[in-house]
């Protein structure tokens, strides 16, 4: 039973795919929403039956009662969700709160990437043609393009500077920048 409660109130981690989908609370691996719809459906049917059998069936009244029940569950879902909000808030406060912009950028994975970008900007004039030797995952590649822009990136043969970086995962954790270098031709 306590496992079910723990599952219900489990914080949903913020992942890259969260931008496309939020799973919501689960029970035995299934969305709680299924159970809620089932309960509301039963309630509506039962209430309609009682009204029809004992009083006078008024569909608007039945509908309103069903909606009230649904809204009650909505608020419960929001209370459950607020545990996730609290967790995100604490996590981001610890990670980013009270830090400088450069420190905040360094916290975004791959860890240490922004230090590399700052190093590149300190070594390479903005208009100089540069070429990069790196084997990055998709996210780190986008990160490089974003932070490097508007650096003049070109083919290695035409480059005045060559930049190298090695990004590796450490101990199954987030990606971590291991080594980097800038060379002038």
């Amino acid at each position, binding site marked *: 039973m306590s496992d079910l409660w723990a599952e219900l109130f489990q914080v949903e981690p913020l992942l890259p795919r969260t931008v496309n989908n939020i799973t919501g609370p689960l029970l035995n691996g299934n969305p709680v929403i299924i159970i809620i719809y089932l309960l509301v459906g039963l309630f509506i049917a039962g209430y309609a039956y009682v009204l029809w059998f004992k009083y006078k069936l008024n569909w608007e009244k039945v*509908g309103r009662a069903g*909606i009230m029940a649904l809204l009650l569950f909505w608020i419960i879902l929001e209370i459950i*969700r607020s545990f996730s909000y609290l967790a995100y808030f604490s996590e981001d406060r610890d990670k980013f709160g009270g830090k400088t912009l450069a420190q905040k950028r360094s916290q*975004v994975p791959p860890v240490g990437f922004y230090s590399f970008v700052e190093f590149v900007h300190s070594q390479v004039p903005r208009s100089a043609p540069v070429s990069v030797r790196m084997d990055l995952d998709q996210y780190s590649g*986008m990160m490089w393009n974003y932070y490097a822009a508007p650096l003049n990136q070109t083919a290695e043969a035409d480059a005045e500077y060559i930049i190298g970086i090695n990004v590796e995962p450490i101990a199954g954790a987030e990606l971590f920048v291991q080594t980097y270098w800038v060379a002038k031709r």
Partner: protein
Amino acid sequence: MKLLEKLAIGYLIGTGLLTLQMFLYSLLGIKFNLWGIILPWVVVLVGFVGAPFMGARIRAVGTPLVGVRNLRTGTSPVPTFLLTAAIGLKVLYVFYEALVKPVVGWDALWNFSLRAKIFYFLGGIPLDRAHPYFLGGGMKQYPLHLPLLETFTYILQGGWNDALMKVIFPLYFLSMLIVFYYALRREQSRLTSLFFTFLLSTLPLLVYHATIEYADFVVGAYFLAAVVYLYQFIKTKDTKMLILSAVLAALSAWVKDEGMVFYFIGLFLLVIPILSANKYAVKFKREFILVLYYLAPFLVLIGPWIIFKQVFGLSVGNEPTFSLAGMISGFTFHPETIPKVLEKMFLSGNWHLLFGLWALVIIFYYKQIFTTEKKYLFWSTALAILFFSFLYVFTYNWTMVFSGIIVNRNFLTLVPQVLLLCGLVYKEGKTDVGNADRAPTGARSAKSKKAHK
């Protein structure tokens, strides 16, 4: 219209016009600079609008909301306070989460914020095809509103601070809540309006998107406002509302390509009743002018962007190239996407119980919807869903339904309207129970009287 609502609409329209101005500057070869951008607006505000606006504002503070009639007053301040506090907390959370960290979103890193950074450092939009950052890189065919607005925040800050830049997203969230609240408040009590605004502020995916750097919920804010004022026009026949709706709908096409479809949904909802109801040429002429009012903002605001895209051979949406012939030849049929979409609507954690509520409201309150102007709210949402469903079932987008990329982000653009309809149709318990109980008895007695006669 209340001052707060004016400010919210002002943010939506103001940011839209500002980025159009920046686009125009780039076309004219004018480099971006703070005074160059804001000075024309200062002149316009002070010289032409300032004095009357201030006067109207002072008058507006004490005036009741248009259309508010027979609403229960004197509700307990405790629930009102609790709901306001709950909404306020969520707004604070959204501001905090957005501002505490720099840009992290995928689409922002390779598209929106990348382009913004380039525009800022280059002082304009690179329009030379040979330039390595032509149109800022990223998805060149995507509308420029969001990147240019981000650029403007950098210009305003005097530096590239991509954490502070993100203030624009919580401000859109706040504007959306305000527009939503006042749309309800014109017909509902304060408590009901606050309650449904609170529900809007709880939609998990909407809250998450308000803290990151994507365009989906931003276009949703424009679509919501456009539909709200179109509905207001249909109810009041106030032409100002129609123009407001047209401007907002047109600007939604400046945020994302879907906005173009939302604009035409508005046009469709405006034209169909005119074509079906009018028998007299005189009246038709008058209403034809109304359609022109609706068309004008689109032609003026979005026309240059469409021409620009044609000139530069830019595509639509995610396709690198777009043609009608290509689209027709690429038609597929994938009905298996429908259960997947329904699952996303009803069983995911993105919207809490929103679509269940919508279904109940349509089933139990269908008369209140389809015999009143509220049917336009229903159809604006239904047509948007039909449009997206068409993309899922008949085009290459079906693969993205199964990879989980597309559906929820598309639905972000329309969920506020779904809830708006529920909020407008919903009736508060006590007064309504009385009416509902009396109505059948009254009907019976009227019938029996007739029978007696």
